[in-house]
């Protein structure tokens, strides 16, 4: 049984190299978490009092402006950050696709990166060797996979990361916003695979600024603001509250048709 439970969790980052900076006044902008000053080491309170319970079949979109804590929340849900206060429990195999490029080695080839990512996601070498052809075909990178990763464009990296993650069967899929970097043709292809994957995998959390992707992959949503969960509910309500307008108003007719056809979107009619 796949589940993620988080109870009253907070994530505070100690910033050791900012000790000498004067932080007497609490810096409170629109952007970024609160910077606490009580302790000797300045702390960025990236998330506070997060309580969330996700189960099999949940597909949650994360929305919020930059620095609201979406990426940190994804890392909390993946178990990379364990809460500094409160507690969390993650049951299931996690497959994250976060900041593309950082988790990958720039100097080694695409093939090697596929292998390493796969091993990280709990695959064996043999299993990955079987999947390499499939990934190569899906990503359309062809001979480029033999090139070092530093020669790849952002979109190509996204293709690679998505190729790996969609070729295995993760139980918990966590996607950060980067996947919007691919071109429309690939996105169509990836969308089918993601929808299919989301249907198979137990749980999806997806941070994005793109309404159409959210509408297609998610059913509910969380609005993050200044490290807190400002709102949690159905995708449409949350998006409407966040954007101040109904996201369905802007959907192009053909996207609407597709949405209606895709059961995963689980949106009534979608017209």
């Amino acid at each position, binding site marked *: 049984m796949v589940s993620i439970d988080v109870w009253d969790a907070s994530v505070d980052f100690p910033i050791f190299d900012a000790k000498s900076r004067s932080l007497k006044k609490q810096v409170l902008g629109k952007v970024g978490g609160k910077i606490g000053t009580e302790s000797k080491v300045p702390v960025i309170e990236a998330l506070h009092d997060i309580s969330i319970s996700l189960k099999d079949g949940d597909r949650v979109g994360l929305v919020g402006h930059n620095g609201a804590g979406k990426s940190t929340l994804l890392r909390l849900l993946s178990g990379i950050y*364990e809460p500094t206060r409160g507690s969390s429990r993650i049951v299931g195999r996690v497959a994250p696709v976060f900041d593309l490029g950082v*988790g990958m080695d720039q100097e080694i080839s695409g093939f090697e990166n596929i*292998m390493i990512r796969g091993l990280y996601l709990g695959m064996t070498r043999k299993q990955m060797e079987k999947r390499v052809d499939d990934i190569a075909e899906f990503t359309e990178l062809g001979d480029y996979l033999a090139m070092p990763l530093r020669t790849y464009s952002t979109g190509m990296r996204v293709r690679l990361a998505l190729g790996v993650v969609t070729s295995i069967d993760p139980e918990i899929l966590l996607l950060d916003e980067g996947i919007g970097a691919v071109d429309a043709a690939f996105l169509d292809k990836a969308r089918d695979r993601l929808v299919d994957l989301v249907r198979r995998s137990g749980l999806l959390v997806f941070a994005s600024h793109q309404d159409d992707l959210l509408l297609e992959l998610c*059913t509910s949503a969380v609005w993050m603001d200044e490290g807190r969960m400002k709102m949690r*509910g159905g995708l449409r309500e949350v998006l409407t509250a966040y954007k101040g307008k109904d996201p369905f108003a802007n959907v192009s007719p053909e996207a609407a048709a597709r949405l209606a056809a895709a059961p995963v979107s689980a949106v009534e009619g979608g017209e």
Partner: protein
Amino acid sequence: MSAPSTVQSVTVPAPTSAPAPSDSKSWARAFADIRAGVANRELWSHLGWQDIKQRYRRSVLGPLWITLSMGVTALGLGILYSQLLGSPIDTYLPYITTGFIVWAFLLGCLTEGTETFIANEGLIKHLPAPLSVYVLRTVWRQCIMFAHNMIIYFIVLMILWGGITKSGYVITDGGVPQPGLNWSALLAIPAFALIAVNAGWVVLLFGIISTRFRDIPQVITSLINLLFFMTPIVWSTDILQKRFGDGVTWRSLVAELNPLYHFIQIIRAPLIGAQQSWHHWAIVGGFAVVGWVLALFVMRNYRSRVSYWV
């Protein structure tokens, strides 16, 4: 197909079950991390090899550079110091070569151990994995380099076969007569295993501490050269005995009080057919026990903090 619409999910509750107490600082999690890390053998062995291949990518000789640079250093130092110290080259060269090879391993574990988590920042922040994977990656990489360096030992042994195989040979003139190379050389294998076990806690402990206190790697780097000259690698304990006699003074204890001496000696002595002493094994074994207890304690308390600190 009237899918359960958005309205329904509005009522999706916060966790209903009672909050589980945080287990971030528990022995269970610390041991689970190590178990999961060891079980991920394919991952860390792949990453370790990758590191070696990566370092020598696009060079013609590739990882053979490890062997070659060790050979050149050992040969150069061997010729120079055998003359300076008045030692026969056919006994001194094997001595300094083995000492230097073991030193390279210890040095690598210490200096690269401090960088274990810092260097893997990207991976730690982007892919959830047990911390011990990075520890094993570093230790494994050092083991591979050690294996490459051992080639030099065998070459030296082949060329200078007569030197250290004679019973009663001396490393430096007037030194203690050594028993000569025999089957007890195989003791070097368990000795290396014991050192590798020690490498595990060194990398884990220094890795975590250095991630939090970034001065530690600098402290280690600045002390490492001093340690090299303090340790009987270039010189042998024969000299101490010759100059200061058997009496117990601080001068004759310079080697015995240096833990690195014991680490080197348990491998070097069997490999060059020198006198072996069980007290070296006891000390290295003691270090393994104490070190692991310390490392596990730090692991328990600070494992979950490493991803915040990198």
